[in-house]
Structure formats: C-alpha cells, structure tokens
C-alpha cells in the first residue's frame, strides 16, 4: 500500500514538474513571431546605415517583445531577382528591399502586398501628405501602395572636399560639363616621371556592380529620354552620343580619368577614391557617410551634376531601395506593423542622423535641419534638393534590367576595342532590346 502511495506521489510530482515546464513555454512560443527581412545591409555591420538599421530594429523589438526581426543579408545586385524567384517558389522573406530597376517586375509579379491594406489606411491624411514625393508615386499603382522607399539614392558627383579646396576649386563653380572637365584637369596630378598619381574624375565601367552611366544625366539634361515609350533603348540618340563622347573623352582625349576604370567595379572605384587616387567620382548619396567615416567627415561632399548652360543642373538617376511586404507571407500583419515603424517618422530621423541618408518626409527634413547644417552634412541637403528638382527614376512600366550593364559594355567597347561611340551605343541598344524581347 505504502509503495503504491509513494509511486502515486512520485508520479504526481513528476506531473507537476512537467506541467510547470510546459505551461510557460506554450504561450511564449505562440507569442513570439519571427519576421524575416532581406536587405543588403548587415544588422551587425559597422557602416552608418548598418548601425542605423540595428538601432531601429532594437527599438522596435524593445517596444514589441513578441516580435523578433531577423535580417538576412543578401548580395545587393542579386537580391531583387532572388526575391522574385523566392516568391515564385513560395519561400520569400516576410519583408524585402527592392531595387528601383526591378520595381516594376516586383509589383507586376504580385509579390508585394498592398501597404494601404496593411497600415497606410489607418494613417491621418497629414501623414500621407508628409510622404509625398516622386519616390512615393513610383511605388503606387492605382489605389494601391506596394512599397515605401527606405533608401533614397541620389547618384551624382561625390568629391574630396579637401583636394578641391587645395586646388582652389569651389564645387558651386562647376556649372557646366566644360567646368567639370576643367576642374578634373586641374585636379589631375602627375609625378616627375609623368605618371598620373591622382585623377580628377572617375567612374567604374565594369558590368558587375554597375552604377548608372554619367551619359544618362547628360542625355536627360538635353531633354532626351533613355527609353522610348515602348520600352526600347534610346541610347544612340544625338544627346546619348554626345554624353558618351564626353565621358570617354575624359579618359582618351583629356586623360583626366583613368583608362583602367574600364574594368573597375563600384567597390574598386571607392577604394581608389579612399586611396587619394581620384578626386571626384560618380557616387551615390547613400555611400557618402561610409566614405566620410574613412576619410573624415569634412573631406567628402556631394554636388549636383552640372547643367548644359541652359539648365542649372542635369537630372541624376535616383536608384534607391523600396521596402515591401511579401504578399504570400504568413506574417503579413506583423511585417506591415514593422514596416510602418521602420519607415516612420521616428525611424527616419535615425536613418538621417545615424545612417547619413537624406530624408524622404517633409516633417523629417524640418526636424533635422540643424543636423544637416552641421559641417560635413551638406550632402544630405544636396541629395534632397536634387531629388526634388533634378531627379530621374527608371520607369516601372517595363523591365529596364541590364541598361546599366549595356552602357558600361559600350564604354568598354569604345575604350578597349576602339569602336566608334555611335556604333557602340547602337550595339548596346540592340543587345538591351534583344535581352528584353523588344
């Protein structure tokens, strides 16, 4: 009898222990939601934008203990096609950053959820108005908002302020393309043996990690378009030829830009810039803060593209990153809540003051005015002014993937194979049209 009671007691105690371990676990596992987000930034990285990303996520998780944001870092130029493939395979992340070049595909594929449904419809009208910009319009189709921009990227001239100052060049004095060439000539330095130790201007022309070509602002400044209304390339137009001639003449004729840049990637270009080998480069506003971290805050600045004498400035390519919620994701509501915070007023201040990005919301621009006025932060104002007055976004009505590579290849053909500018651009047009079935 005693033994039986002992056995029952033991079983009861075991049952209690088991129950005590199970009871707290069940609600915890049910409450914790993991939201996967694809971006090219790392939440453990040390660049200004990565620090900002980590801080925003930390703030959100602190305010929402039941949600865990997992950042899955991807290679930037492959991330959007990979997201589209993952959407088709049914295993895309809850949230993904989408590059402008593939925005039309992302929306057309049905991979992005309508943010109006998820959270924007709850906003007051003033909040919606606060977001008004070309970026906002680009991600809107009909009455649906498919994404919101997280990283507006204004691609123009990034310069070494210290080197320009030493050469007696005021960036504001570079008003025309000829001024730009003259400044590049002045900034080019040769040693006693006649070897160039520093070039005035450079851009990378590799097909890998390709940035938009400098002939694009030249062409747009003349009032031409890069694509015809039917989506076919319009590279070899008279303005396109003039723009490409200007870019390649900097290398071939004036030798103020390195011939080696025919195979430089964007990263190679930044290495050269950071190594004092180039004074001015074509660069995006989002990389200025990283370059400042390396070279000193006051030593790196950004200026608008020069005009053609008739217009003050030529339009620059704005090739940023929009953030969207996966339409088939199992955690759309939670993902939407995070995106709402991630790109809201509180977070945008962090994106600007910590990440060094230019603001998208009018209220943020006002709130950070004193920060922008601080030495070294002038590029934020330049990028903001450029985006509102002199910006160009790639169309989303048709796929434009490959246009950067096509123009860079044309440059390589001119510089390395000696092909004539017009012929190289016509080749690029044919290639682009064929690749896109046009």
């Amino acid at each position, binding site marked *: 009898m005693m033994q039986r009671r002992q056995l029952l007691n033991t079983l009861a105690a075991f049952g209690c222990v088991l129950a005590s371990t199970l009871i707290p676990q069940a609600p915890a596992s049910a409450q914790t939601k993991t939201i996967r987000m694809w971006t090219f930034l790392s939440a453990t990285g040390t660049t200004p934008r990565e620090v900002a990303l980590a801080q925003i996520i930390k703030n959100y998780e602190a305010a929402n203990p039941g949600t865990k944001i997992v950042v899955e870092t991807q290679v930037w130029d492959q991330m959007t096609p990979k997201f589209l493939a993952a959407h088709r395979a049914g295993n895309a992340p809850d949230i993904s950053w989408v590059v402008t070049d593939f925005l039309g595909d992302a929306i057309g594929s049905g991979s992005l959820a309508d943010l109006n449904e998820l959270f924007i419809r709850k906003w007051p009208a003033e909040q919606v108005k606060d977001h008004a910009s070309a970026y906002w319009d680009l991600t809107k189709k009909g009455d649906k908002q498919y994404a919101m921009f997280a990283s507006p990227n204004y691609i123009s001239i990034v310069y070494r302020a210290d080197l320009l100052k030493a050469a007696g060049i005021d960036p504001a004095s570079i008003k025309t393309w000829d001024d730009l060439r003259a400044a590049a000539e002045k900034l080019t330095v040769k040693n006693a043996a006649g070897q160039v130790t520093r070039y005035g201007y450079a851009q990378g022309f590799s097909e890998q990690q390709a940035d938009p070509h400098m002939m694009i602002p030249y062409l747009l400044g003349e009032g031409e378009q890069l694509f015809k209304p039917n989506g076919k390339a319009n590279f070899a137009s008279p303005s396109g030829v003039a723009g490409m001639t200007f870019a390649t003449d900097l290398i071939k004729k004036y030798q103020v830009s390195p011939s080696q840049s025919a195979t430089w990637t964007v990263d190679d270009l930044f290495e050269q810039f950071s190594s004092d080998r180039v004074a001015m480069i074509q660069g995006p506003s989002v990389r200025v803060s990283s370059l400042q971290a390396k070279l000193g805050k006051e030593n790196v600045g950004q200026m608008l593209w020069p005009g053609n004498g008739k217009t003050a400035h030529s339009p620059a390519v704005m090739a940023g990153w929009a953030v969207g919620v996966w339409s088939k994701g199992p955690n759309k509501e939670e993902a939407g809540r995070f995106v709402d915070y991630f790109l809201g007023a509180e977070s945008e201040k962090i994106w600007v003051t910590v990440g060094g990005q230019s603001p998208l919301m009018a209220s943020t621009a006002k709130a950070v005015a004193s920060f922008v006025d601080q030495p070294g932060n002038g590029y934020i104002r330049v990028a903001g002014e450029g985006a509102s007055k002199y910006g160009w976004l790639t169309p989303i009505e048709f796929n434009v993937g490959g246009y950067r590579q096509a123009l860079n290849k044309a440059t390589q053909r001119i510089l*390395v194979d000696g092909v004539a500018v017009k012929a190289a651009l016509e080749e690029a047009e044919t290639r682009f049209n064929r*690749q*896109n079935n046009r």
Partner: protein
Amino acid sequence: MTMYSRLTGVNYVLPAMALLMLVLFSPVLYGFWFSLFRIQYGAPTDFAGLENYARLLDDTELGATLERSALFTCCAVALTLVIALALAVWINRLGQRLGFVVQMIVILPWIISTVVATLLFRWVFVSDIGLAGSLVRMAGIPDVQLLNNPGSAMALLIGVSVWKRVGYAVIILLAGLKGIPDDYEEAAKIDGANPWQIFWLIVLPLLKTPLLLVTIVLTLSNLNTVETPLVLTGGGPGDATRILPIEVFDRAFVTFDLGSATALALVMFAGNILLVLAYVRLAKWKT
C-alpha cells in the same frame, strides 16, 4: 539466375535510384518543362514550345561566346593536366615528409573558397592600386593593365583557373602513380629503358583511368565555372572573357530572362553529357 534473385538486386538499388532521380534528374526535368514556356516575373505563362531555344539560335553573339568558352576550357584543362602531372611525378619521387608538405602546399588553392581566391587575384591585378601594378612600377616597367587588355584578361582568367584546380588534379594523379607497382619500373630498367621511355611507355598508360577522370572533372568544372570570371573580369573587357556560364548568369539575374537562361543552361547540360561520353569513348574506357 532466378527471377527472385534478379528482383532482389533491383530492390537493393531502387532506393538509391529513387533518391538520384529526385535530387539529380527532377531539377533537369523541371528546368526543361520551364524552358518550354514564356516566363513573366519569374513564373511560366503561355506554352511557347521551343521558342526559348530558337531565340538562342537567333542570338548572333552566342557563337563567339561558345568559342571563348571552348578556348578557355581547352587551355585551362591542358595546362592544369601538364602542370599537375609534372608535380605529381615530382612529389612521387620525394621523401615521405617532404612529399607530404609539398602536397599540402599544392592542394591549398583547391580548398580555398573560389570567390575569396579570385578576389585576392583581382586585388593583386586591379589597376592601379594592386600589388602587381606597384611591383611593375617599382621595376621601372611601363604600367601593364592585365585586366584591361582582352588577351591578357583571358590569360589571367585561365591562369587563375589552373592555379585553383591544379591541387585536385595532383592528388588524383598522385594516387594513380602510387598504385603502379615498383616492379614494373625495375623490370623496364633491367630491359634498358631510359626514364623518358619508362614514363611514356609504362607510367602514362597505367595512369589512363585517373587521367581520364581528372580530364572529365576539369573540363566540366571549367566549362561551368561562373564565380571565377564573374569576380575576376565580369566577362570584360568588352566581351573578351564572356563565357557561357556568365551568359546564363546575366540572362537569369541581370535581365531576368529566365526562359532563355534555362534553355541555355539545359543546352550546356546536354553538352556536358556529350563531352563525358566522348571522353569515355575516345579513351576506350572499359569497366
């Protein structure tokens, strides 16, 4: 052999065959099905038959890409084989300890990540902050831009490929050399054969199987490599190092033309199989 014993054998291999079908052949079959459709936003839409394949034939630049792929593969495989064979014969003659150390050194490039190794080469040769450029300038030689010249860019690509894969080839050939009994060489010496005759008439024929294996593996790995050209040259300058895997990669991930990318990948797959069959046939390999 009874029907029962025949079925028993089939039953033994059936699970392995099913796994192979699932892992190896199902993606190919899916890829083929996928290539028969028009693809929009990464998803198949209308049935297009062989349209994606016909578009490959219409591409006037694809022939040149194929030629470059053949040149790159032939040069890289031939050079790797010659260097690996020489190294294997040399290591086989070394003492045990020294031989082991040399083997470890030789195999290092093979075990390093391809992307990391190729990036190292790029940083050495990239103009003009690379190590190679600095050394050239220090020697007073005019700046040589290896990555900017079509010929030297291809030569560099072949060089990196040889460097990366020679370790694997050495290990396989060395295993083959170790498997040749010493008696054969001793008998040949007694018969008056010189070292060259011993190598040419005895060692080389006995290395036929490992040589064939290495040739097949090297050919396939060079023909299908995308990391090395992508990181080192990006297919440039111009189209100088644009080989078939880069073409597939660009179609799939730059212009997002998954239809023709899949069609081209499947044509390459068929080419790979034909090449292996041709090698085996040419070498009269009997099991």
